[in-house]
């Protein structure tokens, strides 16, 4: 795990007049969870075997096409729901990172917005997907703090994924009288060129807790003493 020191941070959805968010120091997994990791978890916790998980905690895509035989340990785990990811982290004495913790590391000092990096991130969105290939851990980008694969590999679950209140581009969001949202923090987007971040927020708001996806995985975090 990598130790992330305490710091203040202006996340993407923060309005100009709002104070920055304080990120208390924490530990985050260097790499996302692999298929081998998850296979070991299921072996110890059979209630998370596909046939034992109720539909409300994982939809029919749970573990679909995932090779759980422990031959390699460098294929990233996907097709897991938020409930499954939470259970995995809890079993390790950890938790999922919060949205702000994740975004803080992923955009530390705006490393993701540097033209070359941003191009590589955007080109991941443009690459077509092969359903039967597992993506290799380590094939994504490395952050300045030494955390791998936050970009260019998969989307990742966060603990409060459902705090993202963006629906479309400008439909309900900027209208403060909108029926869909209470409160003022609907996504306005401080930097419209940072489309990659915009897409992450949009992706999270399309999810429900039991959803699974071919490009959706996770990593864990922990309090730092």
């Amino acid at each position, binding site marked *: 795990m990598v130790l992330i020191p305490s710091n203040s941070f202006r996340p993407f959805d923060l309005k100009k007049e709002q104070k920055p968010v304080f990120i208390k120091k924490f530990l985050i997994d260097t790499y996302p969870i692999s298929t081998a990791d998850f296979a070991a978890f299921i072996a110890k916790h059979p209630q998370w075997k596909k046939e034992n998980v109720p539909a409300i905690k994982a939809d029919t895509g749970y573990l679909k096409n995932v090779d759980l035989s422990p031959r390699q340990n460098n294929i990233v785990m996907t097709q897991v729901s938020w409930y499954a990811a939470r259970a995995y982290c809890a079993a390790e004495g950890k938790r999922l990172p919060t949205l702000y913790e994740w975004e803080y590391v992923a955009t530390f000092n705006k490393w993701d917005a540097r033209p070359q990096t941003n191009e590589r991130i955007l080109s991941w*969105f443009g690459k077509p*997907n092969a359903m039967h290939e597992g993506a290799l851990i380590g094939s994504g980008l490395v952050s300045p703090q030494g955390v791998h694969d936050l970009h260019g590999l998969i989307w990742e679950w966060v603990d409060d994924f459902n705090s993202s209140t963006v629906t479309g581009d400008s*439909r309900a969001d900027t209208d403060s009288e909108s029926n869909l949202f209470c409160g003022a923090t609907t996504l306005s987007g401080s930097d419209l060129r940072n489309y990659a971040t915009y897409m992450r927020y949009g992706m999270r708001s399309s999810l*429900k807790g039991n959803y699974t996806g071919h490009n959706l995985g996770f990593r864990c975090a922990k309090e730092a003493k």
Partner: protein
Amino acid sequence: MDLKIFYSLGLAIALSVTACGVKEEKAILAHAPEVPPQLNRSGNTKVIVELETKELKGRLADGVEYTFWTFGGTVPGPMIRVREGDDVEFTLSNHPTSKMPHNIDLHAVTGPGGGAAASLTSPGHSSKFSFKAINAGLYVYHCATAPVGMHIANGMYGLILVEPKDGLSKVDKEFYVMQSEFYTKGKNGETGLQPFDMNKALDEKPDYVVFNGSVGSMTGDKALKTKVGDKVRFFVGNGGPNLVSSFHVIGEIFDHVYTEGGTEKNQKNVQTTLVPAGGSAIVEFKMDVPGNYVIVDHSIFRTFNKGALGLLKAEGEANTKIYSGKQADTVYLGEGGATQTIPAEKDKKVAAKTKEERIAEGKRIYGTTCQACHMNEGQGVPKAFPPLAKSDYLNADKKRAIKILLEGKTGAITVNKEKYDSVMPALGLSDEDIASVLTYVLNTWGNSGGEVTPGDVAGQRSAH
């Protein structure tokens, strides 16, 4: 007496079944340039529309690939046809291979986001919502997931027609054409899988402006076909994301225009009609004279240099009273007369060295530079652009051919016993490119063969 009762019994059963029979139908979707058939039912019904979003790699131009985000696997997405007053039940499914969530905003929908809020769909999931088509007209639909510009720029748009209650008048042929732009990392024509270029999109400087999702989608064997005498209707859409279109069919005048896709046939005798980004138009005209009619965006550099060109063919008896043989090229070149120079492309990094390499490279250059006028089989356009296929003029003098590619050509010439008096612009091609394209043309379509080298071209260039 028994027979009468038998019939009335049968009628009673038949009436009862039809009176509350299945009052819903599945919408017939059509991929451009096809249009779903005119609705032949009277009154309203519940229409089921099922649409899938899918991200896939496809051809944008010869040698150029792009990862399109699509409705229904094509750009543009399929056309939907319903009637004013219908209740539409819409299911949007996002293929599990998609990386992005998608949704749909149909401009025909009255309601928050045009359906966008209700249809945000994660990969591998489906969303359903319903709306009543309370307004007739021709409407654009598109994906409206943040960031909307990128989703539209990658190909997520199409048309939905809400027919007025009395339907539209009968015509012989209907076509679906949707213009849009593509912004790629590489320049127009640069081969390989091209990623989307955000900065070009923000600056509104596209590399490709095309009809129906790719260069050449309606040329060659994919040209639209009609007969002399046909009444034709075009449903024209503009997906944008940025540019407005000046829609024009060379050699035709629109007898009727439904401006901006509304329900009034409000203008007659229109040459060029504006189609707003995210908007539409309906145009109608009759084919009176046989020949090839070129469909363009009259912001003309988009047509010749970026791909906004399609072909409409009409076959049948000549009608010399209407068209005796006037040339169409003056329209292409605007002012006419002066020979234009088109800015040169930078030299390619890999030079063709062998005859085979020249032919292959020449074929590609022909497709991007020459095909617009000389057509994809070198057949040219009668009375406008001379043929290159089995061309006596070409084969007679290679040096002259090189000179034409270097400098352009004005003045009358005779090719295969036909007279042509057009203008060919100086294309500003490099020596390598001229050598390649000439070698290709000389070795294709029954021409005399042989090879032209960059040295031959350089020699001609310095002689002036």
